[in-house]
């Protein structure tokens, strides 16, 4: 039964991933991606990773997807007519190249996975009660062994905040010139 759910979730995530790539409307792509993440979260949960499943839903579904959706709406890209690169259907070299590369990567990795010769898992191992990612141990490890990575991540978030602020902040009135023609005027002004 549990296995069945796993395979169902896996199928869902693959189909949804295809949906992301194939959908014409970016809003649909975002929604498909969300579905795919839910499927992946389910596989995490079934594999014994409760904490990961939780943050997968919370961070990905709750934060990242909203961010995507927000930008799509902000830039008013939801209109399907505005989307010109209907993939696959339209022919041309790029889609075929893309599919080709994807297929090659898939074939290569599948081949190596098939030949992986992974050690046989012992029979009858049951998941520990705390799951395979017990929170306390994770916390302990993260604050000792991986302190540097953890602190690095915090600096990373800080830098990201600063960087995104620079990139996305509205241009100030004195420099706010969106059409490129007036750029020289702005240059002179700034100088």
């Amino acid at each position, binding site marked *: 039964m549990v296995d069945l759910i796993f395979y169902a979730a896996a199928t869902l995530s693959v189909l949804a991933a295809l949906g992301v790539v194939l959908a014409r409307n970016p809003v649909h792509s975002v929604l498909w991606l969300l579905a795919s993440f839910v499927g992946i979260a389910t596989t995490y949960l079934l594999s014994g990773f409760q904490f990961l499943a939780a943050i997968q839903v919370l961070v990905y579904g709750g934060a990242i997807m909203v961010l995507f959706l927000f930008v799509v709406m902000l830039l008013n890209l939801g209109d399907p007519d505005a989307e010109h690169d209907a993939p696959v259907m339209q022919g041309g070299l790029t889609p075929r190249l893309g599919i080709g590369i994807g297929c090659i990567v898939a074939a*290569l990795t599948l081949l190596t996975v098939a*030949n992986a*010769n992974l050690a046989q898992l012992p029979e009858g191992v049951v998941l520990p009660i705390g799951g395979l990612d017990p929170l306390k141990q994770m916390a302990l490890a993260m604050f000792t062994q991986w302190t*540097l990575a953890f602190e690095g991540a915090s600096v*990373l978030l800080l*830098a990201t905040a600063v960087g995104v*602020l620079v990139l996305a902040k509205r*241009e100030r009135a004195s420099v706010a010139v969106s059409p490129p023609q007036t750029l020289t005027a702005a240059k002179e002004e700034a100088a």
Partner: protein
Amino acid sequence: MSLITIVQESALQTTAQGGAFDPESTQQLFANTFTGDAARALAPMVSLTVGILVLLVCELFEGLKKIRPAVFLGAILASAWGCWGLWQHTPEIGAPVRVLGGTLLVSQQVGVWGMVFLAATLVAWMQARKYYRQEAPFLGEHDVLMLTAPIGMMMMAGAQDLITFFIGLELLSIPLYCLAAFRRVRNDSVEAGLKYFVLGAFGVAMFLYGAGLLYTATGTMSLPELRQVGEALESPLARTGIALMLGSLFFKASIFPFHLWVPDVYQGSPTPVTSLMATGTKAAAFAFLLEAAFLVPVSAATLIGVLAVLTLAVGNFGALMQKDLKRMLAWSGIAHAGTLLFTVAASAASDGLLSAEATQAAVLYMAAYVFTAGGAFALLSWLEADGEHHTTIDGLRGLGQRRPGMAAGMTLFLLSLGGIPATGGFIGKFFVFGAAVQADMIALSIAGILLSVVALGYYLRVVIAMWMQPAKDGQAPPMAERPWAAACVGFCAAMVVAIGVLPGFLSGSTLFP
């Protein structure tokens, strides 16, 4: 006993005890983790982080904005002092010291690499002073981002497991994505940032997937443990994972066939950022590549050598076609990555026997390259103030008459890039090919070294334009007042000559064991 096992054992105990923590063993664990060595190893990174925080505070108050350069330089100097400590005061004997549960290396080479990264950052920052015009309100943010990148580089150089390395990689990349697009009112800068980001993110995904496969096949992500796993490294799964990871590192290091983004991104980014990318990123990528070279099977070492020659060829012939100096330097940067790749190939071909020699060669090469390319980019950023046209090779005509000092500096840097003796570039090349020949890669070395004749072809074209061809018509604009950039050029020129004439201070037996 490695801390990894301690953690696992304590996890086992607590799980068996129903999840309750033993405070004593936890305390013990903390005491074992945060040792004096760990503090020494972290000092350079912590100084930079403190610098970032102080910079952010300075941004809050109008009056404090003036001390920004002092804070920046202070952070760099404090960090350099930390690196110097690692370099000079780490004992040479015995097994390598690893701290923080074995995730971070404390060694002389980490210290030296740190100095190289800091030099690259310093050179980039000095030339960025007075470079930006419309972006003036964001200069504080600029400095913060520039100070973040070397933290990432140091993490990459010292990382002993893939998690730490991965965070280091991101800590280096994210600020550079933002900095590449820093001149956001210009189309080319935004385009450079986006191209760099999209391909960089693709590369990171590739790295992670490869690491995932390697982890599944071997059961560990720690480099010292990966050294021990033996046969598990030879399974197809592990090999695929390693190949994907190398591909992604080659992307960062701009190795053929992952070099295509380089010319566009280098050209579109603000020149100081290009300088940091060309020198710092490359150095960090190679620092880790050399550390992880043992992952490359000996049988694939020749392949790496061939890639090195191909990269050299592609970079040099690409540079030969260019009319714009910045783009030419970008292509030549690819060629230099090719030369450096010889050190990785040498280390892999000798099955780690030559890893110390290869690392030392790479450090020397990069140290020379930081000042050579950094100086060239500094001059370029200075010239850019004259207008777009003045950075094309045609636009440089007659520079020797107009501004002999600048032209002399550029000539020195170009000769060093070409590897003419008495400059740092030669010493670097000499050591790198020394390592390659030690690993018995003579044919590849000859191929590689003959390609540098092609390189001289295009470097000399610039020298010809500057000194031997008359200036085109039209008044040259007055020279831009850029004292920091001038200081940067002078500093770089002095270092290029110093490394070229007296390499002893870098290559003496004390560089590292």
